[in-house]
């Protein structure tokens, strides 16, 4: 009992450490205010101060020095290794940054060209619909050949009866197609997954164009 108590810090030490830590906080703030150059030196100072504060805090405030070495050596090494983890995070982030710099695939800033005509300049609604279907990724899931990809194929879709989940049947007319683009979850065709995202950004004219394109893929459509 005595031995353990003996090793706990005294009030005097505690106050001294307190003063020292306050001075360190003030020092790091002053270094920040003065914006000491170069940047790396400033950062080294910050890290050195932080480590010093951490050591003081663990040793005196958390009183690790009063504990037995068995505990000290179980706690300190793994925690110190966390710094290596942060350094790993930095180096991996730096690699990604380097890739982005050399390729500018994703650099920020406004497009350097004028916003192009979203309709691609054409006035033929079927052709416009085809472009929209391509650019909006519709054709990733809806084939135009009759093949089943993820969603129902558009070939022969327009005007055909579609059996829905739950047994009812609906005719794929304009209203149904429009609803299915804007709110795909409303009526799900049987044996297809409910996964299509709602395309609420398309305007009326664009919707009409896409539907015109779908129509053109049916024998009854105008091609």
């Amino acid at each position, binding site marked *: *009992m*005595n*031995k*353990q108590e003996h090793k706990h810090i005294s009030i005097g030490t505690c106050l001294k450490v307190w003063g020292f830590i306050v001075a360190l906080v003030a020092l790091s703030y002053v270094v920040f205010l003065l914006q000491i150059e170069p940047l790396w030196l400033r950062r080294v100072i910050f890290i050195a101060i932080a480590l010093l504060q951490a050591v003081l805090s663990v040793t005196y405030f958390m009183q690790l020095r009063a504990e*037995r070495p068995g505990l000290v050596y179980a706690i300190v090494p*793994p925690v110190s290794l966390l710094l290596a983890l942060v350094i*790993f*995070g930095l*180096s*991996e*982030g730096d*690699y*990604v940054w380097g890739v982005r710099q050399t390729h500018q695939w*994703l650099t*920020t800033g406004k497009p350097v060209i004028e916003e192009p005509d979203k309709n691609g300049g054409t006035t033929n609604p079927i052709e416009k619909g085809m472009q929209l279907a*391509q*650019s*909006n*990724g*519709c054709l*990733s899931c809806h084939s135009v050949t009759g093949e089943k990809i*993820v969603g129902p194929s558009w070939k022969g879709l327009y005007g055909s009866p579609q059996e829905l989940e739950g047994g009812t049947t609906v005719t794929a007319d304009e209203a149904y197609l429009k609803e299915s683009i804007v709110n795909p*979850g409303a009526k799900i065709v049987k*044996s*297809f*997954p*409910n*996964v*299509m*995202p709602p*395309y609420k*950004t398309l305007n009326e004219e664009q919707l009409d164009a896409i539907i015109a394109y779908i129509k053109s893929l049916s024998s009854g459509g105008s091609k």
Partner: protein
Amino acid sequence: MQEHAAGLPETHGHEETHQHEPTGFWTKYIFSQDHKVIAMQYTITALLVGVVGMVFSWLMRLQLAFPGQLSLIQPDNYLQFMTQHGMIMVIYLLTAFLLGGFGNYLIPLMIGARDMAFPFLNMMSYWTYFVSVILLFAAFIVPGGPSGGGWTIYPPQSILPGASPGSEWGIRLLLMSLAVFVASGTMGGLNYVTTVLQLRAKGMTLMYLPLSVWGIFVASVLALLAFPALFVGGVMLLLDSLAGTSFFIPLVNQFGRQLGHEGGNPILFQHLFWYFGHPEVYIVILPAMGVVSDIIANFSRKPIFGYKAMVISILAIGGLSFLVWAHHMFVSGMNPYFAFWFAIATLAVAIPSAVKTYNWMLTLWGGNLWFTTPMLYAIGFVSTFVAGGLTGLYLGNTAVDVPLTDTYFVVAHFHLVMGVSAILGIFAGIYYWFPKAIGRMYNETLGKLHFWVTFVGTYAIFFPMYWLGAAGMPRRYYTNEAVTQLPPSSHELNIFITIAALTVGAAQLVFAFNLVWSIFKGKKAEGNPWKATSLEWQTPQTPPVHGNWGPTEPVVYRWAYDYSVPGASQDFTPQNVAGGPAQKAKASGKTKH
């Protein structure tokens, strides 16, 4: 007590476990703080969850064998089954069972404690786990269903609407469930680690511990240090999904629409995930290794060969597990030069693993092998562990990993080395400790039937997947008919695998029946049916009652492996027996006979 260093506070002691035995039904079976009851709760919950995971694997296998003939299984369902199967098996079954079930039951009994250090925390750990299971299954009733993003839930795919099923509420619930599971695992892990370090019986040094305790102990430490990374990755992914932050999602253009994210890095999630994910593999396999070591030693009637090497191997595997995570990411697009280090560290893990395998085999050498069901399972474990572990030499070696990763080769590798092996270890443990935990014997014939079908069946399921993977069949494909360059016979191989999987599944009915029947109708078991040395077999009552040890706590005089000591009257000398021929040699620190 008198040997303790001076300076221990006077109030120190084991008073915290000196509680009166609970009497009511609720305190005895539901909100019990007894480690044995909590272990049972963990065991039963994990096994039930595991059944769900197994059913998902059947559905996947049926789809792969008979593509297009089961209209019930659509591509989105398939991905959901796959994701939930992986999550359930790795986390909610294996981790929970091995740490929560075996850990809870074995640690206090094997180290000679009356209970865990913090019984209330232990109870909270189980109920937190229960909540995480509820959250996991809650994903089945939300719109969009559970997540289908793969058990690795890589962003952006797992959280972009329309990419995979359940990418909105399914994944959010899954992440919340994981966070709750991390909380549960932390509570449990703290308990296990503190208990092993602080509550050992008089005379029980760390180097006298049975290897089961070593495995569970190191796994618990790994859990405490690895789960934080999953938690952090999960929180950031949840924020990306819910709050629209861009930790992991860069500027993307999905289905022709530019989404609002900007500047995130998807590979960062993979680092965080595997920083957790690789130690997680060892969290699962280390306890199983420990259990198998104890069972092999017992039924060989021999000390485990090279105990010290076994302990050092466990520690080395545990330590290395934090330095190898990016070997899952050789083709992920991370800095390619990191791969050199990760390949070297990964193949270094092979050395302690090989040491363990050699030591298991050398334990068999010169033994007097007794082929009970647990022993059969333990030997099965060694065989499947080798069959799966050796292919780690392909996948850890960067250049060889490039063509094989993300194919069925990987599926075969990790199923054999950590799925099947861990499950065989679990079965070995269940049969081995059944008499102690229940007080009755299981049916040996049914147990052996269960073993033969399971062991041969798992080889039939997973070994052919190596061939399919080498032939170029990618993982996570809804149907392998999509890969036209595969030889036509690979389809027949898939049907074969499915039949094997269903057979192994059916064999688990035998196991379930055996368990239930034996609990009620099994032959009464004696206290130490296997003539084992470790402490859990020396309890005054079988099954042990609250407080484990009766009025006096056990005192330990020797290690857990004094089988067939020359000159001793029986072929086993329990740890709490003083004197005898071999004790001097042990006490003076010599390990040679």
